């Protein structure tokens, strides 16, 4: 069976140890976590975990059931195939010397990202996008000399209701 990327949106009790239960479930059963993002929701007693995982259909079914079996997990939604918005945030520190500052600004403008820090020989760019678009952006910047990158895991929500 073929493996596919899935994006899971998991609501959990906002309690110590919950993330460890989820991570332990994945490592203990040999599932794979590609990215992970966690923060409290508008209800401070509840956190949302957004997770990207790669698995075939049978394993995916087990992952969802096993997650649901954890006592602190409230709901598990597999957004894959549904109508949803997905974003990642990246901060990219790139070399910015006099000969390429203009070029960097142009690229940033085309993508409609933002420069959030300006130093004598570097910029920090804030980029928000879906994974593949972000990859394309990073590829364009690479020749300029990327110094450091930090990326969040994906976050996602269903569109509409």
């Amino acid at each position, binding site marked *: 069976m073929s493996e596919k990327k899935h994006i899971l949106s998991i609501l959990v009790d906002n309690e110590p*140890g919950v993330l*460890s*239960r989820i991570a*332990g479930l994945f490592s*203990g059963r040999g599932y794979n976590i590609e990215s992970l993002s966690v923060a409290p929701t508008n209800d401070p007693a509840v956190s949302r975990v957004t997770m990207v995982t790669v698995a075939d259909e049978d394993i995916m079914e087990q992952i969802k*059931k096993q997650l649901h*079996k954890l*006592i602190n997990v409230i709901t598990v939604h597999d957004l894959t195939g549904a109508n949803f918005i997905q974003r990642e945030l990246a901060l990219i520190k790139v070399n910015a010397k006099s000969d390429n500052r203009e070029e960097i600004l142009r690229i940033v403008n085309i993508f409609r990202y933002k420069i959030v820090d300006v130093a004598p020989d570097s910029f920090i760019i804030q980029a928000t996008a879906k994974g593949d678009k972000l990859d394309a952006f990073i590829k364009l910047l690479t020749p300029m000399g990327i110094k450091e990158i930090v990326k969040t895991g994906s976050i996602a929500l269903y569109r509409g209701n």
Partner: protein
Amino acid sequence: MKLTGAQILMKVFEEEGVDTIFGYPGGAVLDIYDALDRTEINHVLVRHEQGAVHAADGYARAANKTGVCLVTSGPGATNTVTGIASAYMDSIPMVIITGQVSSHLIGNDAFQEVDIVGITRPCTKHNYLVKDIHKLASVLREAFYLARSGRPGPVLVDIPKDVSNLTTTYEKPQVGSKIEMRSYKPTYKPNIKQVQKIVSLLKKAKKPIIFSGGGAIHSGAAEALTEFARKTKIPVTSSLMGLGAFPGTDPLWLGMLGMHGTYRANLAVSTCDLMIAIGVRFDDRVTGKTDVFAKNATIVQIDIDPTSIHKNIPVAVPIVGDCRMALEELNSLIDNENIDDLCNERDAWFAQIEEWKNTKPLAYEQGEAIKPQYVIDKFFELTKGEAIVTTEVGQNQMWAAQYYHFNKPNHFITSGGLGCMGFGLPAAIGAQMACPDKIVADIAGDGSIQMNIQEMATAVQYGLPVKIIILNNRYLGMVRQWQELFYKRRYASTTLDHNPDFVKLAEAFGALGLRATKPEDVEKVLKEGLASPKTVIMEFITDREENVYPMVPAGKAITDMLLV
């Protein structure tokens, strides 16, 4: 009413009807033990914390209640891990209370500090560290609720020393108040449409089979299962954990399934056209090679835990729910049907099964040395199948499963999933505490009995007439069997030629020690041991290289059996 944390713990024990707990004291639980000493609760002082958990396991299964154990922090807590893992694999309702160092010391590598909540996360149904005294009572109630509801399992509550010592207001829960957890709502009532599908499948099936497991016992489905099988004339097999849910002396009984299952059960499963699986999880010891397991069958699976369904074996009709409720539903549906429509051409199916039964029955030949199977046969005969039998793990466990024909649920107590040597003796202690008037026997090997032999002192202290049957072949028999069959008889580290004198050992503990070396002594020793009011070790010097057959080599199809 203002109470200390330790007193609140006692109050919750009282609310939950706890009358017996198994434990071992230590620094972090001094306050709890001080409070416990002033209650009516029986405390069984084990000699090692692993024994406490296995004893609570045996107690839970024999009494059909939640087992409780209490241990201190650090090594007290880590010593429980094997027992907890075993209870988790076998879905046994249990609450484990561990002491913890005081809150302000947590994380400082304090004396006897260990992160037991972290350690037991993957082998408990759930666990808690209680840092706030105000939450203690509600956490404890939740722990008991989780342990016994849904798919049962062990729940651990870690209580720092200061929390057991601080005081807060205790309020009795209101009568009839229920625990509500938004993230935990087990499904008990099965989907009726799914249950109806079984009835339609029965109308078409010519070679149906029932495969039941531990879930049938935990849910109290034995009666409904027996009624269903007899009404519809369907032969029954079970996993190791399921023994006793259907009477082992019933003509419809096929014997156990799997690696050491009977010839007819393994062939019947591989031939059947409909399998109704009840409270099983299709463990590898049952299925062998999964892609040919029950390959001709439409499989219906009833289980309270959705993760058990479609995990190892594809299932045509999944039914999530309580096994007992599903079977009762099914029985009432069947009452509205013409029963002959549901029992198509059974004669041919039974004739086939009878032929398999006669081709390769479970058998052994009693020669000059005592055959281990003969000991169990005799023990079954003398106890009329009424004993509660615990086992260690290995050949002793398999022979017990094959030759003691369990007619009732909760009478066979074994570490099925984890396969934990050293389980039987403490489990027998727990079972005997639960059922003081029953014969409780641990069927053991000379290897595994030594893993928790210290619990002899516990059995003697509490005057428990536990019967320990040691099948002594001076080997770690099951591992030796594998070495004989698959490692060219190279017996690496499986020879036990420095065993203690078990009779003298029994006497040293203050128990009765008996030994049989010849077949003609077997019955005499069993009778004498059964008649004694003391804890008794009955040692049987058995045929050294007797093997458990049938045997399906690991990873092979269950039809690929090695036979005697």
